[in-house]
């Protein structure tokens, strides 16, 4: 019991800190900063989906931005064209994307590792072409405009701050569910597949089904992020949902560390701060970003959180050793 409590300490501390931050920041800063926080949290949801797929299940997919787009367009369509409420749109985006990911997962996970990654690049490109050309669904090149904001039981998220609170609540619930998943038997079978698929198969895990479920869960997270994005930005353009966006998610999780949702959070925060902090350097921003990624991978291939953890373990062992020698 004690061990379990200790393991969750960082999560609780960080959650408390974030709640404080989210509560305090909008009071003092401009709506621009609040908007950036909302976008960062939406990105965090997508990075969390990469965590489920890559960190837990060991599968590398480049189609996440595509699923994000599908979620966004489903929510956008329901909100603008039918009389469905916000809740309907959200549930439809999550379930629809998850269902699509599950079906595609069954087809695509017949391929292993590298082959799956390439198929996912293909999927991403096809989805992007669909977003550009399927005018009825996505508004085509003009995009989808004037999507109403989130409304639930008379509460309407009109201001940037209230939008931020809604996104934050979704993030909290999602993170909590993913932590539950981590400690469940399904989560353990994900990790078994990550470590050695053949061994997992021989232990009686249906690897095709399990990987498809992982894909569906990551799809659901992306769908939730998409629904949030539709109501936060109010405008959807195919230019958001590209292969490049998917690579940014991968970079984010690798920078944070693939070992835990905290890594996803740190990675998202690091990239967002880097992008906003160096905005004054505009022209050289991307260059610095690229060099930063290489340097970080060279010195900290486990990511910031993973590397910090290793350092902490080493420090703890060292301290224990010195204690023993003192006795």
């Amino acid at each position, binding site marked *: 019991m004690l061990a379990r409590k200790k393991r969750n300490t960082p999560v609780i501390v960080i959650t408390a800190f974030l709640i404080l931050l989210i509560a305090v920041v909008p009071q003092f800063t401009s709506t621009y900063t609040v908007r950036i926080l909302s976008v960062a949290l939406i990105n965090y949801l997508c990075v969390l989906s990469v965590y489920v797929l*890559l960190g837990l299940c060991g599968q*590398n997919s480049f189609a996440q931005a595509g699923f994000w787009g599908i979620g966004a367009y489903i929510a956008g369509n329901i909100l603008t064209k039918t009389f469905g409420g916000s809740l309907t749109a959200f549930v439809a985006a999550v379930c629809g994307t998850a269902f699509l990911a599950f079906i595609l997962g069954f*087809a695509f996970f*017949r*391929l*292993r590792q*590298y*082959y799956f990654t*390439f*198929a996912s*690049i*293909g*999927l991403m*490109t*096809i989805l992007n*072409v*669909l977003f*550009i*050309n399927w005018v009825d669904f996505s508004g085509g090149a003009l995009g989808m405009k004037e999507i109403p904001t989130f409304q639930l039981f008379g509460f309407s998220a009109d201001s940037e701050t209230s939008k931020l609170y809604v996104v934050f609540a979704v993030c909290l619930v999602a993170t909590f569910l993913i932590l539950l998943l981590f400690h469940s038997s399904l989560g353990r079978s994900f990790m078994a597949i990550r470590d*050695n698929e*053949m*061994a997992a198969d021989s232990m009686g895990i249906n690897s095709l089904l399990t990987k498809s479920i992982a894909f569906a869960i990551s799809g659901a997270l992306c769908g939730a992020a998409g629904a949030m994005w539709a109501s936060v930005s109010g405008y959807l353009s195919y230019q958001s949902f590209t*292969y*490049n966006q998917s*690579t940014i998610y*991968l*970079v984010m999780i*690798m920078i944070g560390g*693939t070992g835990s949702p905290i890594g996803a959070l740190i990675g998202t925060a690091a990239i967002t701060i880097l992008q906003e902090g160096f905005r004054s350097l505009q*022209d*050289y921003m*991307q*260059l610095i*970003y*690229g*060099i*930063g*990624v*290489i340097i970080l*991978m*060279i010195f900290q*291939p486990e990511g910031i959180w993973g590397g910090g953890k290793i350092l902490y373990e080493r420090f703890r062992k060292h301290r224990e050793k010195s204690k023993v020698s003192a006795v």
Partner: protein
Amino acid sequence: MFIQLLISGIAVGVIYGLIAMGMVLIFRTVGIMNFAQGDFLMFGGYFAYTFNQMFGLNIVISLILAALCMGVIGVIFMRTSYWALRKAQAKAIIVSAMGASIVLREGARHIWGAIPLTLDRVKEGSVVLAGATIQWQYVAIIGIALLMMLLVYFLLEKTFIGNIMQATAQDQYMSSLVGIPVVVSIGLTFALSAVITGICGGLLAPIFFLNNTMGTMAGSKAFAAIVIGGFGSVPGAIIGGLIVGLVEQFGGAYISSTYQLALIYIVLIVFLMFRPKGLFQEKIQEKA
């Protein structure tokens, strides 16, 4: 129309095939897919532009000089974003290659600007063949590409250096035991790969314009070529490239030009579904 499309499909296809071949050379040696290969193409094009348009040299000489520069770039790339990470997990190396790809793209934008550029064709004008007008550039591309394939074949199969590179690709530890300097050998492989891809950039630039994002698109088509041809197979990469080029040209003309790109990937996914190991399969089964 048919012959025109056939020739342009083959010309574009051999270019994709050569980019794919560059990737396969790196993949066979270090077991990592190079996500920055498309940017080698872009950089090669810009080097050729520098020698051709800025210094006013003949296009063929410019291409040769650009190839030499690309060799240096390849070695620098290998030293900075692969060698330091060779013991890390594959996904760390992939991410560092993505970082390098951003650096190359942005570096090119700072050096040469973001305006699309063009350079001289190897031979201007066109020829009429069986009622179809064919640009000389396409013919030149096919010719130079064939020459390059032959040269690479001779380099890898018949020369001492090529044997060293192949030995390193088969087993790095073993080749270090027999006295092969592994770092030099891997560096040469990266250089060769960058040279092949860079020349392609110089050849492709007069047809598609030269800008700093051209590499991403060409690189992703080369990925498709590799998967269709079979991982780690050089002839497979060339055949895969030809299939991609022909599907692109014919699909764009006869089926739908808006869904041209999607078409390539639909072919790719169909291949993955029904022949997941590609046309030229690896003989070795997966080991536990």
